[in-house]
Each structure stands twice: as C-alpha cells, then as structure tokens.
C-alpha cells in the first residue's frame, strides 16, 4: 500500500463517519427486532406461568375436571382427564401420520420421477397451509356426521395436520443421505427396497423423530379441529378412544369462558403445561436433529 493511501485511511473522513453511524443504527434495529421476538415469548410464558402457577399442583395431574355449574364447584380439581385425552388423541394422530408420512417421503425421495416429486412437494406445502378449522370441518363431514364424535375422529383430524410436517421433515433428511451410500448398497447386489430399508432409512431415524416431535408439538395445541370432532365429553377420566375425550386445548377453551375463577386458574395451568410440553419437545427435537446430523455427516467423510 502506498503512503498516500495510508494518509487517506488516517484522515478523519466524513463518509466513513456516516457509514459507521448507519451501520450502528441498522445493527441496533436488527438487535431490537430479535429482542422483541424473544420478549414476546418471554411475556407470554411469564404471564401464563404467573396465572397458572396457582393451580399447578399434583391435583392438576391426578384429578379430573368436575362440572362446577352442576355441583357448585369443588375446591380443587385437575385436568387429568384432559391430559389423558390429549395423550390418546395426539398418540392416535402420530400413529396415523408417522407411517403414512414416512411412506410418502420414501416414495418422493427414492422412487418418484422428478415431475411427481415436485407435485407432491407442492401438495404437502398447500396441505400444511390449510387452516386447522377447515380440516376440522372436513373431518366433521367425513366421519362425525355419520359416526359421531370420538377420539379417533379427533386423532384423524390432527393426523391430517401432522402429515405434511412429518413428510416434509422426512424428505429433507432422506435427501441428506449421500448417494454414494445407496450406490454402495446396490453395488453388492441388494434390491432397491432392501437398500431403502436397510441402509437409507436407518440413517434418517434421528431426523424423522425430530420432525415427528415438532409435528406433535404443533398439533398438541390445536383446538379448532377438536371442537368439531372430539369435544362433547363425558365427565371424568376416560380411556376409550371410540368416545370423545377431553383434551387440553379444548379444556382451556371451555374453562376460560367460565365465570368461576377456579376454572380460569385451571385454564391457565393447562396452558402452562401445554407451553412447557411444547418447549421441551422442541428442545428435544433440536437435540435429536443436531445429533443425527453429526452422525450423518460423519458418514460422508
């Protein structure tokens, strides 16, 4: 660098000063945007925690909801029936969506011609964007009109919502499996299905579980489809999926409209548990994802 250039660098320079100022301003704006996102989550969690903490005790998990308006309202009640119901409904949804989603992903990534591949991809994106309430009405007209409400119907509605998430996530991890691995397996004379089941799919278990966990977290809080399909519930804790079962989001929805402050506190406690569940599920999914990615990249090199 010549001496003249050095002079230019050392001289106080208006343009440089202005650029630094603009840079600083933009950095602050970007930082603020990020901070606001974190703050919103913080405020939501904090306010839910504050209002729900009062009802957060062992009874919440061991006792069922009682109908306050009929019996004058017991002093302490819980949401055990809703937790059981959510467990069953979401479990059913996962049982339906997971194998189906994995099969879609295997077809799309391993066997489908390019045109069908992008068509199915587009379909999945559109399906993921369909409002939950529309899926609720759809399942209502498909199942509930003829057979009445049940945990099966609720599970089916949630499965429709889960499906594109599970399929998408699985397609993404399948695409990460290096082709050299498929060639290696084909090279020893293995048929395609053995290659897919024996070599490709085991590589993706972590990623598939991640996608499934995120999908579970996503549908665990869905309310609208369940209102149509699984909301007219009997009192007490039930395990029979051919009946409609109470679920956490529907319980929150109903309790929050109650005049009783006990009920409202119960709704907040349910909301807190739901948020914590989703938080831990997402963290778990993240941990699984980094773990399986590391494993997979180790396979390439």
């Amino acid at each position, binding site marked *: 660098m010549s001496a003249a250039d050095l002079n230019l660098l050392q001289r106080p320079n208006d343009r440089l000063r202005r650029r630094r100022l603009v840079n600083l301003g933009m950095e602050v704006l970007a930082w603020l945007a990020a901070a606001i996102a974190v703050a919103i989550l913080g405020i939501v969690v904090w306010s839910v925690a504050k209002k729900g903490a009062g009802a957060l005790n062992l009874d919440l998990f061991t006792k069922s909801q009682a109908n306050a308006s009929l019996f004058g309202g017991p002093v302490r009640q819980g949401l055990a029936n809703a937790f059981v119901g959510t467990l069953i409904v979401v479990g059913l949804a996962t049982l339906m969506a997971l194998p189906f989603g994995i099969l879609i992903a295997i077809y799309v990534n391993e066997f489908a011609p390019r045109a069908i591949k992008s068509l199915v991809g587009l379909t999945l994106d559109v399906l993921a964007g369909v409002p939950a309430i529309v899926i609720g009405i759809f399942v209502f007209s498909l199942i509930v009109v003829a057979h009445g409400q049940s945990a099966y119907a609720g599970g089916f509605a949630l499965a429709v919502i889960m499906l594109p998430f599970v399929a998408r996530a699985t397609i993404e991890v399948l695409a990460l499996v290096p082709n050299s691995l498929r*060639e290696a397996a084909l090279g020893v004379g293995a048929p395609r299905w053995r290659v897919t089941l*024996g070599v490709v799919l085991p*590589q993706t278990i972590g990623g598939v579980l991640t996608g499934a966990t995120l999908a579970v977290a996503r549908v665990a809080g869905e309310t609208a489809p369940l209102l149509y399909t699984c909301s007219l519930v009997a009192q007490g804790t039930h395990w029979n999926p051919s009946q409609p079962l109470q679920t956490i989001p529907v319980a929150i929805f109903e309790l929050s409209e109650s005049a009783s402050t006990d009920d409202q506190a119960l709704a907040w406690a349910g909301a807190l548990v739901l948020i914590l569940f989703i938080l831990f599920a997402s963290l778990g999914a993240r941990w699984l994802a980094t773990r399986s990615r590391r494993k*997979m990249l180790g396979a390439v090199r």
Partner: protein
Amino acid sequence: MSSTIEAAVRVETKRQPLPPRERLEQVFDVQDLTAIYGSKAALKDVSMEVYKNLVTAVIGPSGCGKSTFIRCLNRMNDLVPSFRQTGTIRYHGQDIGARDVDPVAVRRTIGMVFQRPNPFPKSIYDNVAWGLKVLGMKDDLSERVERALTQAALWDEVRDRLKASALGLSGGQQQRLCIARAIAVEPDVVLMDEPASALDPIATQKIEQLLHELKQEYTFVIVTHNMQQAARVADMTAFFSISRGEEGERWGELIEYDETEKIFTAPSDKRTEDYVTGRFG
C-alpha cells in the same frame, strides 16, 4: 521411445507374457456401446472385450467416459434418470443391457468399489455381513466375513474391533473394507472406479497388491487416471480419450486397447503415445 515411457514400464512388476487372446476366456464382450446422459453422448461406439482373471485398466483424461463405461458394466447408470445406452454388452454371452435383465441380478455377480470409500454407517462386521444377509448367504456368516476381510488384507487390523463403527477406520482401511464388502458376496467380476484416488501412497500400494493376489479368483476392471498404477497392476489397458465434434460437442471414445506393456511401450495410436508420455492430459 521416450524415457518417460521407459520410466512407466520400469515401475511395473515383472509379468508373465499373456497367452494369445483367442485362448483367453471372455467375460465381457462390449459392442458399439454408446452412453447418453440427457441429449449428450458421454461415450460413443466402444467395442472391447474383458478377459477372465485379468486386471483390465481403463485410463484416459478426465471426462473421457471411463467411469461411465464401467458403470455400464453393472447397470449402475440405471439410477440416473436421463441415462440411456445403445449397443450391446455381453456378459458370458448374455446381453446384460437388455431391458428384461434384472439389474439387481447383474450387480450380484458384478460387484463394484467406488472412488471414495463409502462404508455403511454400521459396524465393520455388519458392513461385510449386510450384503451376505441380503443375498441369503447366511450359513457360516462369521467365516465368510473373516474370509473376505482376510482377502482384503484387513483382518489383522480389525479382528479386535469388528463391532466398532466402520467410520472410525482410516481412508485406506475403509477402502479395503469396501473391497471386502464387494468380494464377500463372491462376485465374478469386481469393477473399481478409481479406488485409490482418495488414498495416500501406502494405502494405494496395499490396494494394488490386493489386485495382484485376488485376480486368481476374480476378474477386475479398474478405472484409474494414474498411469503408473495402470502399468503396475493391469494386464490389459484400454485408453479412452475425448473427441470433439464440429459444433464443439465432446464425447469419450476408446482409442486403443491392448496388452498393458504394448500400450505403454509401443502404442499404435499417436494419441495414446501422447497421453502415456505425458504430452497430453
């Protein structure tokens, strides 16, 4: 004859002269093979034979279609959607390019080792055993695994850690594991697509030694762009080169195919001589 040719020949190990070609058993008989990706020909009009229990090297500059050629020999190109081929490839007299031939059956008898070591992310043992299990060769599984690893000169290095992940092996060990995996299922032919190009000289030397020992049992076709390697390991050598059309299109062509010694000492084509003496490529 230039000194470069002599240098190339000197590194070659002492070899027995080959019997006349009519007396060798043909494994592959390739006639007018043209390989096309999309609308672009990667390889045009290749005709050559591959003989049993010999090492046949395919050499040539990058882009001359060497890899495409050997991937045609076990239908590996089937995986590429836009690929098609014309001409015939007879394997012991049977046309394996035909539509009704099961590519899986072809790959069972014609194994492959790839450019970069690609062990399965399974244990060392399972890497070799997986193919055996898939093909139903489940009797004496452990013995078969041990035999394959021994043949691939890897047994002594891994016998104490068969359950360990194959990904923990060095690159050279991984490649020998891939060779063990390929020969465990008792193929007739083993195709090798630049098997040593990602390896250091010592690992390369081990693999070349393997070829010498294993060719009693198998037929090898090896792609390499290392001419010394071809000179060292191959009995027959095919030289491929790039041809250019009038409109600038490029395709690979078989220029000359002969005994390795002839290719490196007295090539009959000027292009072969230019390549093996280092004037081109």
